[in-house]
C-alpha cells in the first residue's frame, strides 16, 4: 500500500474539535428541549435524541475520516499500463552544506558522495545526467546532458564554497532538481539526493509530494551516521557554536527514508559497503525491469473507494436526522 500525500492525514486531527462540537451541541440540545417543556421533556424522547445524536455524529466523523483518507491518495495493487519510455534521465542533487565535510564517513561525506557519482557515470550507458547543488538554496549547475565529461570535471569543484546561502534547505534542492527535468520526454526520470538530511529550512515533504505528482522517484543517499561527528574547517579547526563548543553533525535518516518512500525511490546509506551496487541496481530496476514490451506496472489509486464510503456515511448521518423515530422526533 502506498500513500501519495501522507501530509493530508494531518487533517484527521480535526476530528477532535469535531467531536467536541458534537458533544457541546448535544448538551445544548438537551438543555433547549427541557426549556421547551411539555412533551419534549419526556424520557422516551430524550433517549431518541441521544441515539440519533450519537449515530448522526458518528457517521459524520466517519464521513470526515474517509474523506481525509481519499485525499491522502492511497493506492494498492498494480495494473499493466502502456509505457514505451526508453532511456533514463537522472538529476543528482548534492548537499554542499558545511556539514557534508564531516568525516564520520571516510574520507568525508562529500568525498564519498563524489566517488559514488563518478562510479555511476561509468555505469548506466545511455543515461543523461544533470547536477544540482544546494545549501540554503538550490542551484542548477549542469543541465541534463549526455556529456559525462563535464559532470566529471565538476566533481573536483564540489564544495561548500560553491554557494553563498548558508544553512541547508532540502526542499529547495529537490525543487531545483525537479525544475531541470524536461516536461515532455520519452525517457524514465529519477532523482538522486545526496544529503545528511540535516535540514534547517524548508519543508522536504512538500517537495517530495511535488516529485510524486511529477512521477519522479527520489533515490536518497544518506551521507553520514546517526552518531555524527564534528565538522572540520580548512584550517584544521572544527565548526563551533556560539559558546565555543564543537558542533556535532548527525545524519537525519528518517527524513531521507520518508522522501524516498513517498516518491517510490529507495534509500541507501553511504556507510554501507554495498551502497554503490544497491543504488545502481535500484536505478536499473526503475528504468529497466518495470517496463516490459511497452508495458509497465502502475499503482492503482483507490481514492474512489474511500470517497464512496465517505459519501455513504454522510447520507447515513443525514438519514438518521431525517427519519422520524417512534413517531416522536
Amino acid at each position: 500500500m502506498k500513500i501519495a500525500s501522507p501530509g493530508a492525514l494531518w487533517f484527521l486531527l480535526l476530528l477532535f474539535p469535531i467531536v467536541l462540537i458534537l458533544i457541546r451541541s448535544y448538551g445544548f440540545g438537551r438543555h433547549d428541549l427541557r426549556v421547551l417543556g411539555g412533551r419534549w421533556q419526556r424520557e422516551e424522547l430524550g433517549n431518541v435524541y441521544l441515539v440519533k445524536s450519537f449515530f448522526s455524529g458518528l457517521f459524520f466523523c466517519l464521513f470526515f475520516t474517509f474523506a481525509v483518507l481519499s485525499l491522502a491518495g492511497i493506492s494498492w495493487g498494480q495494473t499493466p499500463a502502456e509505457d514505451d519510455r526508453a532511456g533514463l534521465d537522472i538529476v543528482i542533487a548534492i548537499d554542499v552544506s558545511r556539514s557534508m565535510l564531516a568525516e564520520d564517513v571516510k574520507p568525508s561525506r562529500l568525498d564519498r558522495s563524489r566517488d559514488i557519482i563518478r562510479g555511476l557515470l561509468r555505469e548506466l550507458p545511455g543515461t543523461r545526467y544533470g547536477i544540482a547543488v544546494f545549501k540554503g538554496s538550490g542551484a542548477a549547475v549542469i543541465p541534463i546532458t549526455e556529456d559525462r565529461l563535464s559532470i566529471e570535471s565538476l566533481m573536483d569543484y564540489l564544495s561548500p564554497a560553491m554557494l553563498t546561502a548558508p544553512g541547508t534547505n532540502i526542499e529547495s534542492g529537490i525543487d531545483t532538481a525537479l525544475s531541470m527535468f524536461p516536461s515532455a520526454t520519452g525517457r524514465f526520470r529519477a532523482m538522486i539526493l545526496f544529503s545528511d538530511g540535516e535540514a534547517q529550512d524548508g519543508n522536504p515533504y512538500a517537495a517530495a509530494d511535488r516529485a510524486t505528482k511529477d512521477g519522479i522517484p527520489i533515490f536518497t543517499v544518506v551521507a553520514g551516521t546517526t552518531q555524527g561527528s564534528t565538522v572540520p574547517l580548512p584550517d584544521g579547526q572544527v565548526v563551533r557554536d556560539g559558546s565555543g563548543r564543537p558542533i556535532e553533525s548527525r545524519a537525519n535518516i528518517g527524513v531521507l527514508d520518508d522522501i524516498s518512500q513517498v516518491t517510490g525511490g529507495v534509500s541507501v546509506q553511504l556507510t554501507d559497503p554495498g551502497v554503490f551496487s544497491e543504488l545502481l541496481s535500484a536505478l536499473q530496476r526503475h528504468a529497466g525491469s518495470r517496463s516490459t514490451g511497452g508495458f509497465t506496472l502502475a499503482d492503482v489509486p483507490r481514492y474512489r473507494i474511500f470517497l464512496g464510503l465517505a459519501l455513504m456515511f454522510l447520507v447515513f448521518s443525514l438519514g438518521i436526522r431525517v427519519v422520524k423515530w417512534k413517531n416522536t422526533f
Partner: protein
Amino acid sequence: MWILENPSALLLFLLLPIAIYLRHFWKGRGGKLIFPFHVWHGSGFLPLHRGLSFANGTAVLSFWIGVSILIAAVAGPATVQRERIYLNRGIDIMIVLDESPSMATQDITPGNRFEAAKEMVKSFIANRENDPVGLVGFGSQAVLRVPPTLDYRAVDSALDSMRVMELGDGTAIGLGLSVAILHLDAATATQKIIVLLTDGENNDGEILPVTAAQIAREKGIKIFAIGIGRSDPAPLEYTDPNTGKTYRGIYSGGFDEAGLRQIAEISNGTFFYAGSKGTLASVFRNIDSLATVERRVRIQVRTHEQYQLFILLGAGLVLLDFLLRKWALREVL
C-alpha cells in the same frame, strides 16, 4: 483540457433532488420540533433575524454544493496535456562564441558584434526543439559554458552571463573548437555540428584552427564558421570584467576569411560572412536549413488527476455547513 475518468459516477447526481426533498421539504421528516409560535387564528409573525437567515442559507448552500463537488470528485476529474515526444535523436549543436575584446566593436547595430551574435544565437536556439545545444566561449582561453543539452533556458542564461574579455584579450579559435569537439565526441547523435562565431584571426592557444578542423572531420563533426563584422574602422567600447575598467577606441580589423573558409571546408561545413545583423540572421536561417534530420514524433497525453482539489473543496464546504449549524445556529439535531 478537463476530463472525467469515470463519468458514470455522475449518475449519483440523480439522487440529489430526492435527498434535498427529504431534508428540506418532506413534511414527515424527523429531527424537527413543531410548536405553536403564534396566537390561535392570528396572523403570526416572522422574526427578522437576518444574520441567522443568512447563516442558515449559507449552511444549506455549502452542504449541497459540497456534496455535488464530492460526487464530481468520484467521477475522477483530471486535466490532460498533450506533449510532443521525439522518437529519434536530434542534431548536437555546439555554439563556439568569440569573447575577445574586438567583439565589442560597434559596427553592427544595435549594440556591438558580441551582443548581436548573442541575440542571434538565442533566436536560433528558440527555433530548435529536439537538438541538444551547448555553448563554448573563447578568448585567450576556452571554456565550456554549457554542455549540449535540451534545457535551452540554461543556454540562454549562460549567454546572458557571458562578457567580452572574460577569457583574456586573445583569439584562440583552435582552442575553442577543440573544447567543443571534446564535449561533442561522446554524444550519440548521428549528426553533430559546431557553429563558430568570430571576428578575428587566431592569435592565441596551443592548437591551430586547421588542426582542430581536421580532428572535427575525423569525428564526423561539421563546422559552420561565421565571420562577423567589417574591416572598416568602427568605435569599440568594453569594460574589463576583471578590473572594472572601461576601454574605448576605434578598432579596424576583420576576421581571417581564408582561415575560416579552410576550417569549414576541411570539416565539410560551410563558411558564412555576416557583416550586419540582418545577414547574421540569414546565416542562422541557412544553418537551420542545412542542419536538419528527419524527426519522428509521437503525441503523448499526460493525465493529471485533480480529485484532491475537489475533495478538499467539497469536504471543506460540508464542514462549513457542520460548523454553521452546530456552532453558530446551535442546531438541536
